[in-house]
């Protein structure tokens, strides 16, 4: 009887410890680096961002954001980031601050309808 009670206590304590950890993980955004195959900087115009402490020329995983400008009118293709294993396409919805070339110092993006629910 004592043995069963001890096992029960152990089970309860283990499950009660893992639940908060799982809950915390579920609340985090699983942001990932983009694969090199996801981005194409070999032609045309593009804007790319990488993690500050990484070197995009040396590190295999560095890029976190990529936006391509396409066509003669340099239209913006959907920007991409990676969350989990999914590439999330983003649409620019607002700009502000200063502008240099085609880049604003403050920019907001949202996802396309039906592709998750990313918002700003």
């Amino acid at each position: 009887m004592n043995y069963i009670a001890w096992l029960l206590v152990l089970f309860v304590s283990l499950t009660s410890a893992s639940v908060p950890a799982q809950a915390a993980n579920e609340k985090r955004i699983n942001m990932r680096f983009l694969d090199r195959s996801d981005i194409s900087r070999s032609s045309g115009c593009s804007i790319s961002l990488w993690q500050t402490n990484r070197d995009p020329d040396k590190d295999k995983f560095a890029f976190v954001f990529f936006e391509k400008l396409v066509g003669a009118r340099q239209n913006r293709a959907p920007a991409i980031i990676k969350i989990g294993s999914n590439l999330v396409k983003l649409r620019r919805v607002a700009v502000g601050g200063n502008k240099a070339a085609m880049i604003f110092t403050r920019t907001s993006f949202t996802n396309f309808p039906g592709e998750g629910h990313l918002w700003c």
Partner: protein
Amino acid sequence: MVLSLRVEEPEGEAVEISGGHLSVSIPGKQVFSLSVKGGAGCVTPAAAAPDAIPSNDSKVRSARRGPFGRYPVCTNPRDPIQKHVCKDNYLISLNLQSAAVLDHFRTGKDRELPEWLQMEYAHQLIALEECNGKFRCLESVLRNTIKMAENHFIRRKAKGLGRFSRTRFRLFQAKDSPGNDLIPSKSSRNFSWSQRLCQLRCAANSKCAGAGFDALQHNNGVYGYCTMKGRISQSLRNWRPLGVLLVKSR
């Protein structure tokens, strides 16, 4: 997702994002924030003439150049299709040396510009013209100038270019009319070369009706006068930055 970025001044075809934050928010989840750096630019065929194609349609022209496109470079003033670029004379200065060069011009000591530097500018004018808009060729010419600067400028300023893997060339273009200019006459490329340079300067300016190089009107026998219709002008106060060309020196 929100981007908050520090964007540096565009340099030629590239824009550097020197720092910033990327924040992602999804309902029910913790906000994700990350420090980022970045860059923006265009990759174009190396042999393409940079913005040397004239067009009356400014939209078409800007589209060809792209948002981070190369600055227009006057490479062949005699070429009618570059007329919109080659309105005036132009001058190339090394960015790292430009402070010294600018001082020479700004303080009115134009004629005290070191002869070797003056000559090098002249050489570059000719060499760039011969590049005929080929970008690789322009890079090659400017790379040679880096070598020259390493050989000469180190002695003068004790500050070399050797530690720089990438060197910036800042281009200036005159925005006023041509004048009577002193240009080197005793160069390795002899008198005809100086005469050609003089004609080149005239051809580069639509206001120049004619030009002639006179080696007899000289300054210490080193410079001859390139006489053109217009006022005397060699001051960089009247020159405007045209752009920056990044060249890998090694």
